[in-house]
């Protein structure tokens, strides 16, 4: 037993030290920093100026932060419905015994292994380009000149174009999670349903979906985390500007106020930290609410 305790200590200590240094310390520092005005993010603590909760109050009153939160909410809600439904649909089809399952699965998953910068460059230059992009060429080909001239990268369509591109790249990841969830459902359940006369669609809605509650909860949490950390896509859509109304998200705003966009722009690492704290709270709230609403242990297989 003593030997075992020593072994546990030996194996756990490095991981624990790593966790404290790499996760716990930055979290604590960020929470504390959010209560101060900090000119440069690496300023020594002695230079920090205590401002209490005023960073949070400023955030609540800042129009552009509110816009960023609304953008994030729209991505989470509209994008979430799109991504999770399409992923679930694909997962349902691919686990139904379709021929070439592995090929389709690989094709749908491919966007996930391509860097976000490369993916967004592809969408911006080869799909949305209003001179030679795929959509422009397609609408020109069918003679819809009005649609061919649509500007997907400016004005009201910019957010929509960003959302579609981001969702396209996200489907494969969630499809794999759903597929693994579906494959865990015992085959005899479906067999019994088939014998009872239930078709594939009925089985999907009455057996597959209810038994995927736990998987759905996992997907929703992962989706929330990825949307809260929405950064690169937004930056690519705004380039060469630092950010703009239609695509700004809280993390972009955090980056702007922490590092400054111009030489003479006032920076405040404390305000950036406050954004980080708010975002962490958002994830926790979603995690808590989803945990309360979706119980995954009410069905036993």
């Amino acid at each position, binding site marked *: 037993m003593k030997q075992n305790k020593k072994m546990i200590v030996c194996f756990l200590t490095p991981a624990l030290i790593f966790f404290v240094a790499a996760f716990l310390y930055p979290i604590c520092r960020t929470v504390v920093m959010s209560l101060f005005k900090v000119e*440069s993010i690496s300023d020594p603590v002695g230079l920090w100026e205590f401002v209490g909760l005023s960073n949070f109050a400023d955030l609540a009153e800042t129009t*552009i932060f509110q816009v960023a939160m609304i953008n994030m909410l729209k991505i989470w809600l509209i994008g979430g419905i799109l991504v999770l439904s399409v992923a679930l649909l694909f997962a349902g089809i691919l686990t139904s015994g379709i021929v070439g399952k592995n090929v389709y699965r690989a094709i749908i998953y491919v966007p996930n292994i391509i860097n976000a910068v490369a993916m967004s460059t592809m969408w911006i230059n080869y799909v949305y380009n209003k001179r030679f992009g795929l959509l422009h060429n397609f609408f020109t080909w069918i003679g819809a000149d009005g649609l061919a*001239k649509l500007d997907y990268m400016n004005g009201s369509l910019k957010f929509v174009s960003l959302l579609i591109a981001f969702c396209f790249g996200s489907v494969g990841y969630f499809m794999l999670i759903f597929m693994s969830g579906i494959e865990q459902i015992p085959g005899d359940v479906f067999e019994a349903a088939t014998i009872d006369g239930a078709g594939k669609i009925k089985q999907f809605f009455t057996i597959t979906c209810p038994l995927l509650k736990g998987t759905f909860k996992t997907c929703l949490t992962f989706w929330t985390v990825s949307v809260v950390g929405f950064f690169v896509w937004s930056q690519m859509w705004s380039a060469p500007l630092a950010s703009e109304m239609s695509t700004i998200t809280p993390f972009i705003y955090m980056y702007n106020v922490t590092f*400054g966009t*111009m*030489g003479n722009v006032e920076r405040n690492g404390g305000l950036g930290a406050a954004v980080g704290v708010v975002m962490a709270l958002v994830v926790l709230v979603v995690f808590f609410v989803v945990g309360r609403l979706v119980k995954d242990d009410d069905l036993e297989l």
Partner: protein
Amino acid sequence: MKRKLLAMTLVGITATTMIMSGCGGNSDTKEEGGNEGSKKEEAAGEKDSGKEMTYWSMWNSTEGQAKVIQEAAEAYEKETGIHINIEWKGRDIKTLIGPALDAGEDVDFFDTDYMMLTQQNGKYLADLTDMAAAADYEKHIMPILLDNVKEWSDGALKAMPYQPYTTGVWYDKAMFEKAGVKETPETFDELLEVCEQLKKSSVNPMTCNSDGVTLLYGYQLARYVGQDKVLETLDNADWANVPEAKKAADDIRTLFDKGYMSEYAPANYPEGQNEIGFGESCMILNASWIPNEINQNTGATVDWGFFPWPSVEGGVDGPEASMVGSQGFGIVEKSEYKQEAFDFLLTVVTGDYDSKMAEAVASIPSDVENTKWPESVSGAEPYFKEMTKTYQWAVGLENNPTYKEILYDNLIKLTKLELDGQSFVDTMTAAK
């Protein structure tokens, strides 16, 4: 038995691979080390001081500026025996350098936008006033840049500006000629006349990238009221009480409404600017790096002309006022080789290497004694030398991190003709 055999085979293969890769790694390292050593000796010639300076660069190693700096560093090493270890950080340096220096990273000098260098990183930088005086450095640099640097550092000289830029309207001279335009416009009304002439010659008179709308509006408003009033209006969101805010918005809208701007403008970067290289549009308001960018992007060899953004009736500013800026080198206060770094940087920002850099990327030379400007930007030379007033980038319209996106969004709506001048002012006032 089979399993044992398989396991032994795998172990054997693994061991052989490890040994071979280990040997290979060693020999590679030695070879590289040997090469590096011989290269160093070759570069150092007969001198080897044993000193080494570290430079964090805002450039990527493939850029024209980087190649000239690398060449200057090798020449400096050959002459002094001091090796310069260059780390090409690219534009991310603006977020990296502060934390790195606070963490004790051994950096002797670095570069970034000169305003960012002095205003955000000034606390890390050495005052170069004495070294500059001893080397008679200031006579080489445009006074207006030095004045800015000193103003931002309470009179101290903490940056060595280089690669200055100016802004104005860049145009294709051949298109002007074809349209019968003899003189460049000096007032906004004349600009509209030129646009009309160009339009009749079947080209888009102007174009712009979507990020250029703040420049257009910033210039126009500043021509009416000057930069200080623009900043005051912006800070107080006092648009409703500044009649010129509406006038400037109406003026810019006119360019789009009358079809003087390309139908694609404001286009996503760099599609708008590339229209000039493709022979579709004639003029663009932008910085002096734009001719080179367009030529590089499109493979065109445009014969470039330049004129400052025109003045307006009843306005306070004219061609004497322009958005200018530069990059800047700063030497870290904690460096033990400050004088050596200054001596090296002097060779980069003045004399032959400054000329080489200007030629390499078609930019303005930073040394005023380098009188030969690259052909594509030479049109700006007379105006640049007579300029007495500097504007910030976009006349400061992009300064406010909590407001600039709102302004930008409404400017896009204005240029898409979704807002008129009055509704632009109303929306901006309401967004306070």
